């Protein structure tokens, strides 16, 4: 009762509870309902923020000092980082004051803001995800981030509560409390080291998987990002031009062929190395564990630990992708098709459950997830073969590649006519013709579908082959689509829609009668003509 306004009027302004006076913004009704104390984030978020900013500041400052440059851009960058290093901890101190939360009965209350309060209430039974993550700088101080998501409005993120910086023990208690009240299909993810998942290990890391990552997209992306980063850092300290000159003189010194060979070797080497490094960082200490409750928990990561939890109830199937290079190395990438995965999770790549692996591992994990023999050894249905699509689909596939090549040829010919390029460049589309025919035939061979009592299988693609295995119970609609060409050829695409994963899965170039039958079976409607 030190509040002067209370003393002056002699009555409690909230009218209910004297303890409410030091929190005048709290709705009196809440106080009446529950007198649960509010909790705050850990004060350690302030030094953690300071450490985080220093980690970013030190390299720039060291470079600046080391090169002793007078470059203005470099100086301002360092100054800006230094200002941030002060402001960010200050902001976290404000956060410590602003953010409060508590669990009252069946609700999680969360308020933020100092002058303008923003309150969120989340009914515990609406909680769909509870994720605990811990970046390196936070882990030093024993801090974790708790992210509570509700299934609804996953795309706007509305209703999600993020508690950035709780003591580890407190976070574990909160998580346990939320999970006991939440619906059974909640997905909870906890960074490893915070809590080791207990249960049967389904899959552990095999280092030979690294091969699939080294020959993938990183072959191109790796060298580009390394060169970009080096130039960025050097320009930051004002030595961009100097480096350019050094390289130019080096190029002049050695013969052209030696230069080309060296660069090629360097680029490939950097590409392979980048793939290896990113794989190591992303999949370090990877384990996939089945908890006794039936949840699958994948934990991984060297610097940032990532966790993905999949509840069996939210699983609607799997997708197995086999791009052409991976396929040549007998690899495959399996990912679960799940409902209630938030956009943030999809973007953050934490929904990845298994890296590109050998085919047998992908198939085995898929079968373990789905709880039975669903896929066979060669990523085909376990029960029987895929139904091939009509041979007319082969014509369409081949012609489609040939048309694309013809367009390239036309553009190249236009360039040659205009005199910009030599006519020899027409050899490129000519060489592409057999590749296109081969790809078209391969595309047709991959086409296939199968529907049994529980699963719909759809396979397509040559350069980027994918096999979708979907539970029939997850299908909530079907489209049969025909383009003009498909109408002439009597083919059709079948699109099944679902609330899970990609939301829509496509079977390409089925016989139109088959597409109709599948759509009819999946939706339980009579779509054929009465006499058909």
């Amino acid at each position, binding site marked *: 009762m030190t509040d002067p306004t209370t003393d002056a009027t002699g009555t409690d302004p909230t009218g209910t509870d004297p303890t409410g006076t030091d929190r005048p913004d709290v709705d009196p009704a809440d106080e009446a309902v529950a007198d649960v104390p509010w909790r705050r984030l850990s004060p350690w978020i302030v030094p953690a923020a300071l450490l985080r900013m220093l980690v970013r500041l030190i390299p720039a400052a060291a470079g600046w000092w080391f090169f002793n440059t007078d470059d203005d851009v470099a100086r301002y960058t360092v100054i800006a980082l230094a200002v941030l290093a002060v402001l960010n901890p200050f902001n976290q101190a404000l956060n410590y004051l602003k953010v409060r939360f508590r669990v009252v009965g069946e609700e999680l209350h969360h308020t933020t803001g100092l002058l303008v309060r923003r309150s969120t209430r989340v009914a515990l039974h609406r909680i769909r995800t509870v994720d605990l993550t811990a970046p390196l700088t936070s882990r030093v101080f024993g801090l974790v981030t708790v992210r509570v998501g509700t299934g609804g409005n996953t795309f706007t993120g509305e209703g999600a509560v993020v508690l950035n910086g709780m003591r580890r023990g407190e976070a574990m208690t909160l998580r346990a409390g939320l999970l006991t009240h939440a619906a059974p299909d909640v997905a909870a993810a906890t960074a490893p080291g915070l809590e080791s998942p207990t249960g049967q290990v389904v899959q552990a890391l095999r280092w030979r998987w690294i091969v699939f990552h080294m020959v993938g997209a990183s072959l191109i992306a790796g060298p580009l990002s390394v060169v970009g980063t080096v130039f960025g850092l050097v320009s930051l300290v004002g030595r961009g031009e100097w480096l350019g000159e050094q390289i130019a003189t080096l190029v002049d010194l050695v013969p052209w062929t030696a230069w080309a060979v060296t660069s090629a070797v360097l680029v490939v080497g950097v590409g392979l190395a980048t793939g290896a490094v990113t794989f190591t960082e992303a999949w370090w200490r990877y384990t996939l564990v089945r908890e006794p409750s039936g949840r699958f928990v994948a934990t991984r990561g060297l610097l940032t630990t990532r966790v993905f939890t999949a509840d069996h109830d939210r699983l609607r199937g799997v997708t197995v992708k086999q791009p052409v290079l991976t396929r040549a190395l007998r690899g495959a990438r399996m990912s679960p098709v799940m409902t209630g995965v938030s956009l943030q999770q999809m973007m953050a790549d934490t929904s990845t459950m298994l890296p590109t692996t050998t085919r047998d591992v992908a198939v085995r994990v898929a079968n373990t997830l789905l709880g039975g023999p669903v896929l066979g050894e060669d990523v085909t249905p376990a029960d029987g073969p895929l139904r091939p699509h009509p041979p007319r689909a082969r014509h369409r596939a081949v012609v489609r590649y040939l048309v694309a090549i013809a367009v390239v040829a036309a553009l190249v010919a236009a360039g040659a006519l205009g005199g910009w390029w030599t006519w020899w460049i027409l050899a490129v589309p000519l060489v592409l013709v057999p590749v296109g025919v081969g790809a078209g035939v391969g595309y047709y061979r991959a086409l296939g579908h199968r529907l049994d009592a529980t699963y719909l299988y759809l396979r397509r693609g040559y350069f980027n082959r994918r096999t979708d295995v979907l539970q029939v119970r997850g299908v*909530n*609609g079907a489209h*049969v689509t025909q383009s003009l060409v498909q109408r002439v050829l009597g083919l059709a695409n079948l699109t099944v829609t679902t*609330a899970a994963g990609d939301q*829509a899965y496509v079977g390409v170039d089925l*016989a*139109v009668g*088959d597409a109709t039958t599948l759509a009819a079976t999946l939706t339980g409607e009579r*779509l*054929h003509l009465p006499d058909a």
Partner: protein
Amino acid sequence: MHDHEHEPAPTPPEPVGPAPAGGAPRPPRHRVAPRARAYWFLRRATVLVVVLAATLVPAALWEGGRPWLVRVAVALAALLVPGLVVAPWLRYRTHRWEATGTAVYSRTGWIGRQWRVAPLSRVQTVEAKRNVLHRVLGLAAVSVTTGSASGAVVLEGLDAQVAEDLVLHLTDAVAATRGDAT
């Protein structure tokens, strides 16, 4: 299977046309309102006018860019006019809809064809939408969504009254066949 009593019938059901080739899905029972042709025509005409205005007005004001702006305008007009002339009538021939007792079923397209089925047990929302052009022509669109972001069945160009009845009918039917809607 077909719940004729509760289904709003705007016109006597069209006789089912000649059998579609090769086992394509049967046509849904109802055509859209005849004024839908005017709607599609006006919508495409609006796009054409906007496109021509966006190219020809600068062409009139800016002499330096006139030759190629006019060429762009001609090219765009050549691309858009066939659709303007043909699409509304082809669409009217193709577009059909039906509310069976258990699903919403539509056929759309003008060059291609798309049949969409949304089982009522999986339907989440049913709503009528009317934009300005709809209001002028006394039309409405009915949008039926499911738990999938790509699962919506949209019935364009229904008579406003028919659309209203359909929304009522579907809302009742969805409530009666409440599934888990996922």
